[in-house]
């Protein structure tokens, strides 16, 4: 079955859309397995950004002149593209930020200012990325609130049965990573949201590692907030998104102050603009937004379902291959996991592994992957992570396996 989906997907054709993949690194063909850190961009994204530089650039909003009006249209169309991509109810619920990290900081500040009082509680999981830990810790520090943690087991499975006992009258928000950037685990957010609903608790989904891998429908999920980054969904850097239900966004105070987010400004009194502008202070990254729209269109045209199935096949293929390698520890083996593989070769430092693979042309990431609690869970200092995308192939996985053998030969 896996093989079937592998064949049905024309990855050769896909790769033609990503010119960067067709290069040599250290005199070896590049095998780009660092997609968890950032993804490569299809030509359509590069072309759109270039078009801005060559003939479309102009600041948006309030501009009466032609270029400004066109750029404004592009920007609002990009918002609509994002809305449709995650099936939000209306485009006012889509706020452009500079990335998932900014989105979470926006939420922690604005939600915190309005709804968090001393003694209140926020719940995250043990497998969060730092971006979904530190803003909440900072908020808890400011407001004297408490951060609680849903643990996971050694397979990388969230211990959901612990959630009820973690929830109290004081719980205001649960912010949870959808797909773990280390373990690949796809968490059962629908279940978490259902539980939260019964207690009237808001739920934020960190979808930074999921929107690019599987179809997401925020209305079906019924999440209150959802965040992701442009550069991880094949789009530009410096652009991100926070989705929020209108009823929430209407209530939250703004995060950043500046131009465009205001209605009337005087030194006596300032009133804020309506949604979504209230949360978009200053000149937004409108070129980034236009590029992001192209990236999402590319994904939609390719089909998130198809992408998901192909990537699942890659995962099955890789996990099977990895099992055959002696002394290879892969962290996270929950079924249905994303094509993210963090591992340690027994007795070899992740940095040594990464440096050798690099010289073979394989780009992997090493270290803590901005998820130190996950490292602490397994009692390690770091891991090697190969994170794949739909332009990767089984041949590349085979080559990684050869690379691992080479590392073992050198260090053991």
């Amino acid at each position: 079955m896996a093989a079937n989906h592998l064949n049905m997907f024309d990855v050769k054709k896909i790769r033609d859309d990503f010119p960067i993949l067709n290069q040599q690194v250290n005199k070896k063909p590049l095998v780009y397995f660092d997609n968890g850190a950032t993804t490569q961009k299809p030509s359509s994204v590069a072309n759109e950004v270039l078009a801005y530089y060559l003939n479309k650039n102009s600041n948006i909003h309030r501009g009466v002149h032609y270029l400004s009006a066109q750029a404004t249209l592009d920007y609002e169309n990009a918002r609509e593209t994002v809305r449709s991509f995650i099936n939000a109810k209306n485009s006012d619920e889509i706020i452009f930020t500079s990335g998932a990290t900014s989105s979470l900081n926006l939420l922690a500040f604005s939600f915190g200012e309005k709804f968090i009082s001393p003694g209140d509680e926020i719940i995250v999981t043990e497998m969060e990325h730092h971006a979904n830990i530190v803003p909440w810790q900072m908020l808890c520090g400011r407001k004297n609130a408490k951060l609680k943690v849903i643990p996971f087991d050694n397979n990388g499975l969230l211990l959901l049965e612990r959630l009820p006992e973690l929830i109290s009258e004081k719980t205001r928000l649960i912010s949870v990573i959808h797909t773990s950037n280390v373990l690949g685990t796809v968490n059962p957010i629908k279940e978490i949201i259902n539980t939260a609903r019964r207690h009237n608790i808001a739920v934020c989904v960190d979808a930074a590692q999921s929107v690019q891998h599987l179809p997401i429908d925020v209305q079906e999920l019924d999440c209150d907030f959802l965040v992701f980054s442009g550069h991880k969904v094949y789009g530009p850097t410096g652009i991100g998104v926070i989705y929020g239900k209108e009823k929430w966004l209407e209530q939250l105070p703004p995060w950043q102050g500046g131009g465009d987010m205001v209605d009337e400004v005087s030194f006596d009194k300032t009133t804020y603009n309506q949604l979504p502008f209230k949360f978009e202070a200053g000149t937004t990254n409108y070129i980034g937004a236009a590029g992001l729209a192209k990236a999402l269109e590319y994904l939609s045209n390719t089909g998130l379902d198809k992408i998901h199935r192909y990537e699942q096949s890659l995962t099955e293929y890789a996990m099977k291959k990895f099992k055959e390698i002696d002394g290879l520890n892969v962290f996270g083996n929950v079924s249905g996991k994303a094509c993210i593989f963090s591992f340690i070769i027994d007795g070899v430092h992740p940095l040594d592994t990464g440096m050798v693979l690099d010289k073979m042309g394989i780009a992997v990431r090493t270290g803590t992957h901005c998820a130190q609690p996950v490292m602490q869970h397994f009692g390690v200092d770091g891991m090697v992570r190969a994170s794949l995308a739909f332009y990767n192939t089984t041949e590349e996985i085979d080559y990684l396996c050869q690379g691992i053998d080479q590392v073992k030969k050198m260090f053991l």
Partner: protein
Amino acid sequence: MAALQQVQEEIIAEFVVFDDWMDRYNYLIELSKQLDIIDPRYKTNDYIIKGCQSKVWLNAEYNENKVVYSADSDAIITKGIISLLVRVLSKRSPKEIIDADLFFIDAIGLRENLSPTRANGLLAMVKQMKLYAIAYNAKFGNR
């Protein structure tokens, strides 16, 4: 009274003769002068449409099952555009207004004024006119 469709086609015919933007604008300036003067008591903040760079005031009354609009603006071209909207939509049934497809805007080259940018506020204007119609429809409903 001419059908909504027909009025729009008349407007398009009037504009089609201009191939220069300045002529189109000059015509809108002309039209702005023909807009009935709004009752001064509606030229207050309560009747102002948010999201325009110019001030736009709009009022709607219900008379013999029809919605009757009056409006004004401190910017002339905006006022000219409003006069077109009033010409097309005023004195029609709420239903007709709610269902109206304002194709003439695009056809006479004013589409960019419909963008959600707040520079011009034509979009806000149309929205507000339809909101009035919806409100009257709810109140006096069923035609």
